């Protein structure tokens, strides 16, 4: 900063540390809860320091699941979550890339009409059309399938807009050079456009992976079969069971596992994550 006032800097650091503490406290409590055995988790007050049951709880939660809650093992649900998140992120990126390519690089009838149709999806979040969308998916026989979980969520105006923005910044001369070199549209797309958009693709993937992994309402509606449960849904299932017999050590272990992959992605791909977040909102 401009002037050197150690006191002000110190206060800034203290405020930040306090802020971090507030933000992190729930996670700490979650972690602590996941390290104790069931018996300890019904004694008031609850512990503030970790116990020694972490790996036992981990094994129990991952491979056996919560007894009595009727939910499959968390490891199993995490695989479902992973498949769904990857399908949503991959699907969104793929269809947005090619539709942005068509809209930016081709002159064809109804081009703007298509653009506006894609734009409209921005105004129709799943929450406002749950019932009729559910009916469509049910009629198509897509309930309890990965397709039903992911496809209705992969139309994306934001991703299309972002790629459109990226393509518009790519100099025209590259296309001209490629045409003189003899590249057709698809060759240009694959050899030039996609490689040039790769950091944007990666950034978007980070955002969409988190988006996909954290989906809740939609999986709740289209899956009735336990074999299709995702981990985020599983937590809710366990919470309901907790009304009778609170197995907080396992619920918190599950919470920890459910947040692990997306948090991992945010922390370790921070640069891409920030880029993705700021660019999709442009």
């Amino acid at each position, binding site marked *: 900063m401009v002037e050197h006032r150690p006191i002000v800097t110190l206060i800034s650091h203290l405020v930040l540390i306090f802020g971090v503490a507030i933000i992190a406290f729930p996670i700490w409590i979650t972690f602590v809860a996941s390290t104790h055995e069931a018996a300890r988790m019904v004694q008031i007050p609850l512990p503030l320091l970790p116990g020694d049951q972490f790996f036992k709880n981990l094994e129990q939660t991952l491979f056996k699941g919560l007894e009595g809650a009727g939910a499959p093992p968390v490891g199993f649900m995490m695989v479902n979550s992973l498949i769904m998140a990857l399908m949503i992120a991959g699907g969104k990126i793929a269809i947005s890339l090619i539709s942005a390519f068509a809209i930016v690089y081709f002159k064809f009838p109804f081009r703007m009409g298509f653009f506006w149709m894609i734009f409209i999806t921005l105004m129709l979040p799943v929450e406002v059309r749950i019932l009729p969308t559910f009916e469509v998916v049910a009629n198509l026989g897509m309930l309890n399938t990965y397709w039903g979980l992911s496809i209705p969520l992969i139309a994306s105006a934001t991703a299309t807009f972002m790629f459109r923005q990226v393509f518009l910044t790519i*100099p025209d*001369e*590259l296309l*001209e*050079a*490629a*045409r*003189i*070199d*003899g*590249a057709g549209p698809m*060759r240009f797309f694959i*050899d*030039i456009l996609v*490689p*040039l958009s*790769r950091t944007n693709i990666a950034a978007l993937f980070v955002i969409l992976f988190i988006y996909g992994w954290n989906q809740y309402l939609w999986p709740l509606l289209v899956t009735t079969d336990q074999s299709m449960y995702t981990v985020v849904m599983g937590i809710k299932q366990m919470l309901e069971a907790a009304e009778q017999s609170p197995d907080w050590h396992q619920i918190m272990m599950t919470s920890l596992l459910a947040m692990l992959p997306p948090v991992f992605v945010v922390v370790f791909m921070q640069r891409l994550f920030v880029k993705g977040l700021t660019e999709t909102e442009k």
Partner: protein
Amino acid sequence: MAEIHLRQVGKSYGEVEVLQGIDWKIGDGEFVVIVGPSGCGKSTLLRMIAGLESITQGEISIGDRVVNDLEPAERDIAMVFQNYALYPHMSVYNNMAYGLKIRGIPKDEIERRVKQTAEILEIGDYLTRAPRQLSGGQRQRVAMGRAIVREPSVFLFDEPLSNLDAKLRVQMRLEIKKLQQRLGITSVYVTHDQVEAMTLGHRLMVLNGGHVEQLGTPIELYERPLTKFVAGFIGSPSMNFLEAKMSEDGSKAHFTGGNSLELPAHLSGHGDRRVSVGMRPEHLLLDENGSNTASATVHVVEHLGADTLVHGTFGNDDGPELVVRLDGIKTIGQDEVLTLSIDPNNIHLFDPDSGKRLNT
């Protein structure tokens, strides 16, 4: 190797005509330059030859093929772009090899050609680098290499030197000229820089507002500009144009500011009318004993070392503005009155309204 033939070529975007009636035959192995101010349509014409713009009127042929409906890739041309248009994510080698790969040329042949071209352009050491790791001059070479390696029958250059600094520009200009002489490939070069145009081209096309002002060799354009536009465009500093009234018999031109010049026989015949008299700054000499003298009032003097530029007015302070270029270093003061002379053969007469040359 190929000739390029433009027949009544024109281009319009809807109602707007940007090029009209362009006829030109470019010989095999010739280096021609299309020059003009920005917006004159020169890049459009080049891009029409390349196939990047459609041809709305007329016909272009390369070799013995009419290329109007051919894709750029099928025209057997290569192009060097102003911003180089190197593929940023590919190495120098892959940039050069990309077009050859698409054409399905065998790997070892591609390697041989790329290596050989890199040798010529002295970029052999950079083949594995990415374009962003190169300097402007090196990128320029890679862009040329990408064109050369294709062994096309025509090279097209779209202001390739305008992104370089002045010194590098002079150096690359020379290299392009040498390269073209060595390879002997028909080349069309577009620029707005008249020095580049004069030094590079065997022949020049001066474009202005979508039509051809003049075609010819650099010497022809310099010595006998057909229009005021060409006269002003070619040469630096620009030719002086001085409004004058011709005497009745056409033997003398009278200027505001008190000067009059005797015109030799071949310039007469334009009696009793207004003309625009064109005199190049370098053709005005400090010579009191010359046959055809006139005075000039000095306002500003610029010393460039090799020559001295004098800005002033022709005659007294009321006269038209004038620039004189004198050889070497001259000590001239402000408000000094100089006596200048000019060889009558270096005087050009233009119609002040149409801009057309009067003396033939």
